[in-house]
């Protein structure tokens, strides 16, 4: 670690009704990877927005390269060398890689854009990073991982001295994360200051040098990563101890009835001849790398996407699922990985979202019985301990974890017996995560059967009774929880044909 390049001291920021940042400190040195951790809503993003001039601080000082600064917009921060690589990628899918990287500052030849020069410059950047991307490729044809590399290349092309990674690994495969880490280590070696925001404890231990923890808009403390344990960090984040022990034995007896049987399912390019069984009260984990076809399998099973062939049996009876409507009739509920797009209607209330799949139960003749609807929603708000001021609150105002609970309520109210949880804890903070885990365990104990798709190994090992592993659209492994290890799962997940 080198000299201090960036110091934020006593940063204070209030919004009407919310004290978002309460005298927060952050110090970044040259050649260090500095983790910024905290639950959702702890103020990490707000702090970074203050740094890059999106928000303006109420008080406190920002010192950058020895001078006090205050950027009035992200452009100024960028010009000074402070760049954010966002979690959600800001790419123009129809433009090429090089055009994306140099957008807004194109190389010109007279009055015309010099695409050739831009491609060359982009290639130089990629060489520098040691990654293999064709600058003339159309952006939308790249994988999410590659797109992120382009974001990083773009950041570096700004001659960045401080790079902020905002949950960079959320959408990446394990292999892509490895590549990302390699690049981050390179950048560190080049004496850049790196701020790394992530929820994944394992990554923090692997890649970062120091950790600053925030809680409820306040500064909790800064630790040297190698001197502290996971539990230390978690304790600072939530003020309580959470154990992430793997499950050791299945909670389901081997002769429990099969509630769902899928045979030779084929759908699109991503689902090839997938067969599996789900037993009553079981949590069946679906593991695999990103792009293994797990979500596609779930969507085809649920009727959200068309399938080419394959048979589905619910409680032993063959069913024909052509649309989500059919699936719901069979008692199947699907919680999408992309809550905002597929799970909830953000500008509607908790009650309206909760009864979305089962409105017919809450009718009085032709009309919706608002009172009964609210009671049902309230019952599940209480049951799932959803934190909301009331059932008439708009879902957009809830945190990610609580939004997820509203989606769960939707399917429980519908009385679905088979629930597909697709990445149930993505983007959800640690505290809410363990609540969702507990909820899933309780549901399984009550006899609901759950398919859980997850890209987090710890989640798979902690929750599943049995594990199906997929790779490139095929089922490449099935393990009982007793025999499952991280290595065995990874082995199956990389069993390419």
């Amino acid at each position, binding site marked *: 670690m080198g000299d201090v390049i960036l110091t934020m001291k006593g940063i204070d920021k209030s*919004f*009407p*009704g*919310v004290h*978002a940042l309460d005298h927060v400190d952050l110090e970044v040195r040259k050649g260090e990877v500095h983790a910024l951790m905290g639950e959702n*809503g702890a103020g990490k993003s707000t702090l970074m927005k203050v740094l890059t001039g999106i928000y303006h601080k109420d008080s406190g000082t920002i010192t950058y390269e020895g001078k006090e600064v205050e950027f009035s917009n992200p452009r100024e921060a960028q010009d000074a060398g402070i760049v954010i690589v966002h979690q959600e990628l800001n790419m123009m899918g129809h433009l090429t890689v090089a055009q994306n990287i140099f957008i807004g500052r194109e190389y010109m030849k007279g009055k015309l854009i010099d695409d050739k020069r831009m491609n060359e410059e982009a290639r130089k950047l990629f060489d520098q990073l040691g990654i293999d991307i064709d600058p003339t490729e159309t952006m939308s044809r790249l994988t999410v991982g590659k797109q992120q590399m382009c974001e990083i290349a773009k950041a570096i092309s700004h001659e960045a001295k401080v790079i902020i990674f905002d949950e960079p690994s959320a959408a990446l495969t394990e292999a892509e994360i490895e590549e990302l880490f390699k690049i981050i280590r390179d950048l560190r070696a080049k004496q850049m200051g790196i701020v790394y925001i992530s929820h994944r404890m394992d990554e923090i231990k692997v890649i970062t040098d120091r950790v600053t923890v925030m809680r409820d808009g306040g500064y909790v403390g800064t630790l040297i990563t190698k001197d502290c344990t996971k539990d230390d960090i978690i304790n600072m984040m939530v003020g309580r101890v959470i154990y992430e022990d793997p499950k050791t034995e299945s909670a389901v007896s081997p002769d429990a009835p099969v509630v769902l049987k899928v045979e030779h399912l084929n759908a699109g390019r991503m689902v090839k001849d997938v067969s599996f069984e789900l037993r009553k009260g079981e949590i069946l984990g679906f593991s695999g790398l990103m792009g293994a076809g797990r979500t596609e399998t779930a969507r085809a099973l*649920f009727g*959200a996407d068309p399938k080419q062939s394959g048979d589905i049996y619910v409680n032993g009876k063959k069913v024909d699922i052509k*649309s*989500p*409507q059919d*699936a*719901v*009739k069979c008692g199947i509920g*699907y919680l*999408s990985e992309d809550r905002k*797009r*597929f*799970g*909830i*209607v*953000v*500008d*509607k209330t908790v009650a*309206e979202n909760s009864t*979305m*799949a089962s*409105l*017919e139960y809450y*009718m009085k003749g*032709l*009309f*919706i019985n*608002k009172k009964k609807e609210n009671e049902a929603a309230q019952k599940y708000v209480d049951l799932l301990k959803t*934190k*909301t*001021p009331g059932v008439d609150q*708009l879902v*957009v*105002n*809830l*945190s990610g974890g609580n939004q997820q609970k509203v989606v769960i309520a*939707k399917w429980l109210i*519908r009385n679905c017996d088979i629930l597909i949880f697709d990445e149930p804890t993505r983007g959800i903070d640690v505290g809410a995560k363990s609540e969702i885990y507990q909820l899933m365990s309780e549901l399984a104990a009550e006899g609901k059967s759950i398919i859980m798709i997850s890209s987090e190994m710890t989640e798979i090992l902690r929750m599943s009774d049995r594990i199906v592993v997929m790779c490139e659209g095929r089922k490449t492994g099935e393990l009982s929880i007793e025999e499952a290890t991280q290595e065995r799962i990874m082995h199956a997940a990389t069993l390419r044909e």
Partner: protein
Amino acid sequence: MTDKKNGNAFTNNPLVRAIGLQKIVVLLVLVVMLVFFTSVSSTFRQYSTVLSIFDATYYLAFLAMGVTFCLITGGVDLSIGTGMFCYALAGGYMITHKDMPVIVGILVTLACGLIMGTINGLIVSRGGHAPFLATLCTMMIVRGLGAIITGGASITWPSSSSPNGWTRLLFKIPIGDTRYPLGIVWVLLVAVLLSLFLNKTRPGRYIIAIGSNKEATRLSGINVANYQMLAYIISGLCTGLGALAYCSAYQSMAPSGGGGIELNAIGGAIIGGTSMSGGSGTVAGTIIGVCFMSVLQIGLPMIGLQANYQQIIIGIVLIVAVYIDVLKNKKLA
């Protein structure tokens, strides 16, 4: 940080929140406009002006209420303007050229609306066409159809003095020497029914949900295509009602007319707070927005501002209304 409400005491007032800020603002401006026109123009103060404002409001209100449903699903129906003419021409042709009873003319008019609404709905929900394009095409089709049906002739529905002219009396009933705007009753009746439908029934709830997040609605096991189609059917039927109101209020209807009226109706809905991006809108707001449009339409000429100025002023009002919508969406993002 769950509480994102950062309004003041006024915007947080429960009554204001229930009615909606935009509607209150539009209503206030409407009152100010009425006061202004009344004090500046003596013609505006006459009872006949009041009647003509109502005449200009009825048909526009029906059209706008219908298209509100399409707008709420995130779509639009451009065929309502020329459609209104086409359906009224078809119905009127039955009466004037085929000597059918008036009731047949009325039923033909409504049936035409229903059929075209269904066709629009099918193209959008099953064919997957963008609503703008689909209804732009049907807008042209009905414009041509109207002229073909009547053989290019103008049609006038029976006048109020003839025994077949009772459709006109339905909207303007004479009691003693004065004529009363009975049409208010029909417009309000339809408005109440549609409002109940939108807010209290399952199809209504689903139509709003589709506009907010179509994919999430579909994945909740709801037949999205059916409800999307329903919105266009409602729009078609309302256009049929609008056609009846129009031909009852005005004299002859020229074939291939009506173009541009759809934009006034859509404009009224938007001024009343319906979002162009879908997911929100109210029937009451649309009625207020339509009154706003018709008062402008009748009032501006009376203070000496002719058609060209009207267009400019309505354009500016729409920009402001859409900007309010943009601000609302920003708060959600």
